[in-house]
């Protein structure tokens, strides 16, 4: 699945996007976070504060329990500060 990172999360992880193969058994946004946190310190730091993580699947805001599959585009970012 294609994953996008923005702002502080992008900086912590060190890239703005990547494509991963979803391991079997991982089928929610929260599951993807748990999986990524196992991939290195940069991910652990990026996802360290759950209340500062927002997610979108295919350009729609979703919660951590939202279902995902390899065909989805997932995005992670901090709370928005536009306007």
């Amino acid at each position, binding site marked *: 699945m294609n994953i996008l990172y923005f702002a502080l999360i992008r900086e912590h992880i060190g890239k703005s996007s990547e494509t991963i193969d979803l391991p079997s058994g991982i089928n929610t946004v929260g599951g993807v976070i748990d999986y990524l946190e196992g991939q290195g310190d940069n991910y652990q730091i990026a996802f360290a504060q759950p209340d500062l993580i927002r997610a*979108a699947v295919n*350009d729609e805001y979703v919660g951590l329990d939202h279902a995902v599959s390899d065909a989805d585009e997932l*995005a992670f*970012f*901090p*709370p*928005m*500060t*536009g*306007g």
Partner: protein
Amino acid sequence: MKISVQSDDFDISEEIKQLTDGRTDIGAVASFVGLVRDIHGVKKINKLTLEHFPAMAKKELNKIANQAMDRWQVEDLTIIHRYGEMLPGDQIVLVITTSHHREAAFTAAQFIMDWLKTDAPFWKKEETEDGTHWVAAKTDDDEKKERWK
């Protein structure tokens, strides 16, 4: 309805003209311009960078605009949100609402600004004398959004 996510600056007279030219039924035009401030808390700001999620930004701005059109008697509206590097005093965001009556125009513009603050996928990074940092979301912006529910 004009929704634009752009790096270029904008001119409010020009944008109002686009909404009102050739129309004589609009009595009220409310607008809001957000500018980069030179100070945040106690820190002096030298530069602001706005990062955004392009695909989603335009989509969310459209959603917010459509909600405003549905809820109030708004004739037409424009939302322009810039991204990229800006200096104190620069324009960041523009909202214009037109209506037959001033109440609807004001309320819709305020609604749009409140939602933009919390729902538009933009992130501000400030460059201060002590280095750069991402701006934290404000809880009072969430509260301002909540009152519209």
